[in-house]
Structure formats: C-alpha cells, structure tokens
C-alpha cells in the first residue's frame, strides 16, 4: 500500500473514531428497567413516565445538563427479578451510564453486587434495602429520601401530631396490616421498637399475597378496636383493605397508608370507601408546581409526553418520577461542577449523589417548592434526610393535611449501622472512611481553585 493512501486511511479512520467518540462524549445515559405491564403496571407507567418527562424537559428546555444530552433506553421487567437482571446485563454496556433506577426492591437486591462491581450508582428512591442508607458499606446504593425504617418513624410522628404529641400515644392501639412478603415484613421490628419506646400497643396482621380477600383480617381488627390502622400494602391489597374496612365498619380516616399504598391506583378502585383515607408521601401530588407546569407546556403540549393518559399528570407516581428525575439530574449537575462538563463515569455520578444537597431555596429554584422539601445526601448517609408529608383522599384527589415532618433518624441510625456492619462482616468488606474522603475532596477542591488563580 502506498504511503499516502495509508496515511489517508488512517486519517479517515481517526476522524471516524473522533466522530463516534464525539457522539457519546456529550451524552449521559439512563437505562430504565421499567414495568408497563403486569400487576404493577400502574405504578411503573406513572413513575417511568414522570422520569422520562423530566429528562425530556431538561433536553428540550436547557439542551441537556450543561450541554450534555440526557438519553435513556427501556427494558420491560414486569417487576420480575430475572427480567430485571436480563435488562441490566443487556444495557450495562451502553456508554455513559449515569445511574440505575429500577423502582423494584427485588431487582435492586439482585443488582447490589453487580453495580458495586461495575461502579455505577443504583437509586432506590423511597424503597430498597434499609441498611444501604449506610454509604460506608454500600458505596453505590442510594435509597434516596426515605427508607422503610424512616417511613415507619414518620408515620408514628404523624399519628402523634393527630393525638397532640408523642406522649399522647401512650396506651393507644395501632394495628399494622402488612403484605405477606419480605417487603411487608421489613418494618415489624421497628413498629415493635417504637411501640416500646412510646408506650403504645401494636398488633401486626399479615395479609397473604395478593391480598384480594381480607375478611378475616378486618374482623380481627374489628374485635381489636384499634385507634389507627397502618396499611403497609401493595397492589390490589390496598383497595381491598379500604373496601373491607368499610364493610366491617372501620372509618377510613383512621387508616394511614405507607409509601406503597399512597397512589391514586390504590384508592380509585375502592371508590367511596377510600374517602378520608390518609397516606404518607415524600412528594405532594397535583400539577400546580412550576416544574410540573413546565412539563405540561414544554413536553405534553408539544406531544412528546410519556403518559398515555394526560389526566395522570401530577398523580403520585408521576410526581415521584419527576422528583426522581430532578434528583438524578441534579446529581449529574453537581458531579459536573466537580469533574467537568462532559459525560461522566458512573463513579463520578456516584460522587454527585454523595454531594446531593438541595436546600429549600434550591428546591424552589428548580420549580419544585411544595413538591418536596429538601435532601441532604452525604457519604455516610445515602438516604439524605428526606421529609415526609401526609395526604388525604377526598374522593377525587389527594389533599395535603400535614406539615413536612421529620422522621426520628437519630434513633434509627444505630439499628441501620448494626445491620450494615453485619453485612460488611458477612461479605468481608471494609467500610469506607467517609471523613478521610471528604478531607481529600476538600484539599483537591482547594488545589483546583489555587490552580485556577
């Protein structure tokens, strides 16, 4: 081959390479293990719809995050673990993956080892493994805003406000109706602990999966005559609980739902029986928040919205999806400020999540004032002190009926640390030294600013 041709070929090749490199250099990818069919499709379509809507908004309004386009691809899991794993294995080689957001406890568990090996963050907003709150042992797992323990504490704090103080709970009876699954059982020890601490009586009653028959459980409740019933439900169990409560004469306004019992899909099938029912949430529902309005104008009015049914804009799962989008995008933005405005690696985005601090002012600037309160994630605390509020179903929509309450994080932390320490021991892991990492971060930042000067 003549020398010239070779050089030309090389040049063309490198140009092509540069082009290919350029194409992914300014893209950040979100692989989605969505579930739009099957028993939990209602939650999946709302959540992933909201997430995609927010990413679409950022791309169309801001041209991405500092010019880095956001992309995504979907794989259907039907909420089944092995399908989730298949999708993970299929999509994990895509370039520029920012984070994984499965919204499924089972899939999240199966991914912990994998994301840790692949060094990509795994976001389990409002759910997931409680002890992954301890970022020293689970560097890549983020149960943002709320884990099952703080949810439990938040519900008790709320019941205390209804009674007029934590001390007024003494002598009261609370029945917890939980779904017969690992998810449902997870908070049993916490309710027992809080009952002992505050002197109320707790009765925990299991509803076997799927929960389409609850006559006997509610008759037991009727005999027990509790002051409140906490619903730790899942899917069809929730409307059936509300219907059966009505059938056995238990008032709906004394039933408080947990974070998986708080959506429109949980109450609409129960019809009239759901009126007055209260549920916890980390994000208010409704479309009146500026960011949701921007999605309506900038995304749905242009026909690029993800929800098939526009009526679901502002629903609980849709808003959770939007909020999840905000948190992911802000983590990417924060990491970009530190590492540079380019496609980041998963580990760099992990750093972003570990510095995800959005105070009320920043939340308002993002157009999400009232949608959620604030978040403060650190290396050691991957939950980020999410506040909770309570909403009541008025027969047509959810109305916020409480302030933003703080779960008792300090009381829960030792239990979480004991659990994560046991995990670390079982796996032979050495917990990270968060203080040292933060010092190192501070000194690089100082050096960087010195260099800049």
């Amino acid at each position: 081959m003549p020398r010239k041709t070779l050089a030309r070929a090389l040049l063309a090749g490198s140009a092509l390479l540069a082009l290919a490199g350029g194409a992914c250099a300014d893209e950040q990818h979100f692989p989605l293990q969505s579930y739009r069919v099957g028993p939990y499709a209602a939650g999946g379509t709302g959540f992933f719809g909201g997430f995609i809507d927010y990413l679409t908004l950022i791309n169309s309004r801001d041209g991405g995050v500092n010019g880095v386009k956001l992309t995504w691809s979907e794989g259907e899991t039907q909420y089944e673990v092995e399908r989730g794993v298949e999708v993970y294995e299929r999509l994990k080689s895509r370039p520029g993956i920012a984070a994984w957001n499965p919204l499924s406890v089972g899939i999240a568990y199966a991914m912990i080892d994998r994301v840790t090996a692949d060094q990509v963050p795994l976001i389990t907003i409002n759910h997931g493994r409680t002890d992954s709150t301890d970022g020293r042992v689970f560097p890549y797992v983020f149960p943002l805003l709320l884990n099952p323990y703080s949810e439990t504490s938040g519900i008790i704090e709320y019941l205390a406000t209804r009674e007029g103080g934590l001390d007024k709970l003494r002598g009261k009876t609370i029945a917890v109706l939980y779904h017969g699954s690992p998810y449902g059982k997870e908070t049993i020890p916490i309710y027992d602990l809080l009952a002992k601490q505050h002197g109320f009586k707790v009765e925990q009653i299991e509803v076997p999966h799927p929960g389409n028959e609850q006559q006997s459980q509610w008759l037991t409740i009727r005999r027990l005559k509790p002051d409140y019933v906490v619903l730790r439900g899942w899917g069809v169990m929730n409307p059936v609980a509300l219907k059966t409560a009505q059938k056995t004469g238990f008032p709906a306004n004394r039933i408080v739902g947990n974070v998986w019992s708080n959506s429109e899909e949980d109450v609409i099938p129960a019809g009239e029986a759901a009126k007055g029912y209260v549920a916890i949430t980390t994000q208010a529902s409704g479309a009146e928040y500026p960011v949701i309005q921007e999605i309506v104008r900038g995304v749905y009015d242009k026909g690029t919205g993800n929800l098939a049914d526009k009526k679901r804009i502002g629903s609980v799962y849709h808003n959770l999806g939007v909020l999840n989008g905000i948190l992911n995008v802000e983590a990417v933005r924060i990491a970009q400020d530190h590492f540079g405005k380019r496609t980041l690696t998963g580990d760099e985005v992990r750093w972003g999540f570990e510095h995800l601090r959005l105070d009320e002012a920043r939340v308002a600037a993002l157009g999400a004032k009232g949608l959620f309160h604030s978040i403060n994630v650190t290396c050691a605390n991957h939950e980020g002190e999410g506040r909770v509020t309570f909403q009541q179903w008025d027969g047509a929509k959810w109305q916020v009926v409480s302030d933003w309450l703080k779960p008792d994080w300090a009381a829960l932390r030792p239990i979480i640390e004991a659990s994560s320490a046991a995990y670390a021991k079982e796996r032979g892991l050495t917990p990270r030294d968060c203080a040292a990492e933060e010092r190192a971060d501070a000194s690089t930042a100082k050096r960087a600013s010195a260099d800049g000067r």
Partner: protein
Amino acid sequence: MNPDLTFFIEVVLGGLLSGVMYALVAIGFVLIYKTSGVLNFAQGAMVLFAALTFVSLVERGLPFPAALAATLAVMVAVGLTVERTVLRPLVNQPPITLFMATLGVAYVIEGASQLVWGAQVHALDLGIDDTPFDIAGVLVSRFDLFAAGIAGLMVAVLTLFFRYTRTGLAFRAVADDPLAALNAGLRLPRIWSAVWIASGIVALVAGLLWGARLGVQFSLSLVVLKALPVLVLGGFDSIAGAIVAGLIVGAAEKLAEVYLGPLIGSGIEGWIAYVAALAFLLIKPSGLFGLRSVERA
C-alpha cells in the same frame, strides 16, 4: 349476645359469603371440565377480560345495559374462538396438553386485554352501597348479600337450562358418557361451543362482582387461585359440589385465619384451604358428593 359468639357468627357468615364468590369462579371451570375434561386455566384471564371490557365501555360513556350486552357479545365471541381454534384441534390429546393449551390462551387473553384497554386500574361501581347493616350485633355486608343473590340466581338459571332445554340435556348426556352421547348422534362440537359460551357468561358475572370488590385490574385474574381448592373439594364435575365446597372453603379459611392464625402465624389463608380440601379428600377419597371419578384413586 355474648361478644365472642357474635364474633364467631360474623366470621362464619363472612366466610360463607366469601365462599359464594369462590364458587362463582369455580362454576366456570366445572362447566367446561364436565363436558370436555379440560381444566380451563384461562378462566381467570376471561374474568379479567370481561370485567375490563365492561368497565372500559362504561367509562367511554356507554349506558350500563348496552355495555353489558356488548361485553356479553364479546365474551361469547371469545368463548367460541377459543373452542374453535384451540380446543377443537387438540381433541383427543391428553388432559395435561389441553391444560397447557389453556395456559397459552390465558397469556393471549391477558396480553390482548391490556393491549386493548390499557393497564390502568379502574373502579367498578355496580350501584350497591357497601355499608354494613347490623343484625343483633352481627355486621352483614350488603354487597356480599347481593353477590350471593346473583350467584344463586345464576345457578338457578343454569340448572333450569340443563334440565329443560335440548342443549342442556345433551350437555348432561355428554357429561355422563361422551361415547354413548356420540353414538346417539349428539354433535359434540356444538355442545362444546355451548359450554364455552356459558363459561364466558359465568366469567362476566364473576368479573363484575369480583371487579366491584377489588377494582378492575390485572390481579383480578388471580381469583382462580381461590377457586382451585373449591374444585378439589367439590369435584371438577359438579356444580352443586362447587357451591357447597365454596361455602365450606370460605368458612374454614376464615375460621382458620382468625382462630388458628394467632397460634401458628397469620397469613395462612393462602394455603390452608388447599390443605383442608386435601385432608378431606384423604379421609373421604370419593369427595364431597361421592361421585365416582377416575381421577381419584
């Protein structure tokens, strides 16, 4: 009245009324099994499809009776299609093959119903207020009584149909002895079509009543799991057996959950019905009604 006794009565009564709902689903199985020996696992999918079709039509503004008629027509079409395209080509195959085929059919119906009507959940309001009323301290659910009434009515209609119509007589002849019926010149395919239509109608009734209880959503297809122990106990081939077994299973399961649950752990409802039905069969293998059956040793 003694509160413990009142409570006991409430539990039993609630169980019996739930049992009627189980029997309602079980009857759909019995109709098909009796004439063709097929355990139709697609029954649950048919229940879902019927309820979803009905509720979607109502939500699109169709009046109640028109939606009912339209859904009925759709269910008849589904029954006929399944019979023609799946069961007829598989005639003379072993029961297990037929069973698997109905699982395939269940996939198709589940997929199609969600593809057509979407995956959202719907409320289904039949216009019955479900506030309980109080009889001497015992709470009784208005809706459950209504459902029991509908179920009774349906059984009465089916009984009359089988006793007094030609197709009904043919159905019984086939159930008693298919070969003799064939010899007597009865056309089996016609009878099969008839029972598939009938089971489609039963699915519609079950779908509406269960749908009003649970909301119309994917989980509706899981109600078959409640019907299976009823079938084991009552026999796959007896409508009366399904009703009586439904009542027994309903009451036994509630009593076990309420009184046994605290001892061995709550949430036992999922399997206790199966164990109870099984224990009964082991003691009395001929089943509830002493029907002879090759299926039981």
